[in-house]
């Protein structure tokens, strides 16, 4: 057939990557929407186990919400620094993002561990099955963001701000921001509705 290889410009690579990643984020939204709808349907299926008001703590939910808002803020600031060509600033903001992400993850982990200690697991009731699923699907996404951030951090360290690391940092910042947006719905539907008795 003798087809010519397609050669993209830097500008095209950037646009395509961003649009492709945006489409992925949108499909992820649909997936999370399905998990949320499941939770909403099953939230009163508490069987003999605890109800939302028994186990959810307002301060925990508020604390981790602030953490996630901060993480997405610093991810964005990291990209701003990269845009200005400042390698040290970029790496520093990204490191802060990672630390905050790890803090969020450990808070969620300890909340779950606390519940398991009391004998409340995903096997206890439909409500708890749905709850653990929503929380941990979200947390696995956070874990992925942390791993990705660590890898990119090392790429920034060894290669500096290049066309490629900048593009990757842009979509990584989008990912952190997306996770923060998802958490808005999580804390509203799960924690606030739960504690508020809705």
């Amino acid at each position, binding site marked *: 057939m003798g087809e010519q290889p397609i050669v993209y410009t830097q500008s095209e690579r950037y646009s395509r990557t961003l*649009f492709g990643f945006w489409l992925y984020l949108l499909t992820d939204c649909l997936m999370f929407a399905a998990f949320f709808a499941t939770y909403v349907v099953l939230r009163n299926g508490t069987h003999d186990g605890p109800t939302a008001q028994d186990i959810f703590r307002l301060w925990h939910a508020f604390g981790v919400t602030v953490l996630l808002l901060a993480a997405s803020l610093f991810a964005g600031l990291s990209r701003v620094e990269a845009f200005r060509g400042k390698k040290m600033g970029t790496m520093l903001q990204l490191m802060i993002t990672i630390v905050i992400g790890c803090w969020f993850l450990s808070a969620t982990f300890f909340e779950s561990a606390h519940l398991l200690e009391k004998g409340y697991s995903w096997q206890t009731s439909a409500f708890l099955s749905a709850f653990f699923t929503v929380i941990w699907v979200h947390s696995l996404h956070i874990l992925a963001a942390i791993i990705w951030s660590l890898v990119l951090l090392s790429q920034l360290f060894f290669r500096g701000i290049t066309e490629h690391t900048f593009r990757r940092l842009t979509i990584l910042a989008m990912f952190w921001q997306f996770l923060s947006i998802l958490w808005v719905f999580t804390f509203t539907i799960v924690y606030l509705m739960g504690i508020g008795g809705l």
Partner: protein
Amino acid sequence: MKVRNIPHQPLFGGHTSTASYALGFVLSLLLTMIAFFLVGKKILSGTALGVAIFGLAVLQVMVQLRYYLNLGKEVGPKWNFWAFFFMLALLLIIVVGSLFIMASLNYRMMAM
């Protein structure tokens, strides 16, 4: 070394300033605090509470989409903007559809 050759789009943080991020952060925090306050101090309950916290959530998401991701500020054909609304349409069909069906089943299968 500044970054060159990225498309001149304000989208997804293209030229997002620190000011935009700071504003988005403060607004998000504020909306979060109001929502938690309403629940914590038991100011509202029932449907009113549901509408309030859901409204605040939607508002916060709009703030974040606008100030962090610059959605809607694209130059030229707004692919990202419309893809988002397509996703939203599908989402509403899936979620509202599921909730309606499950509620209907729940009603029809009630004990006599």
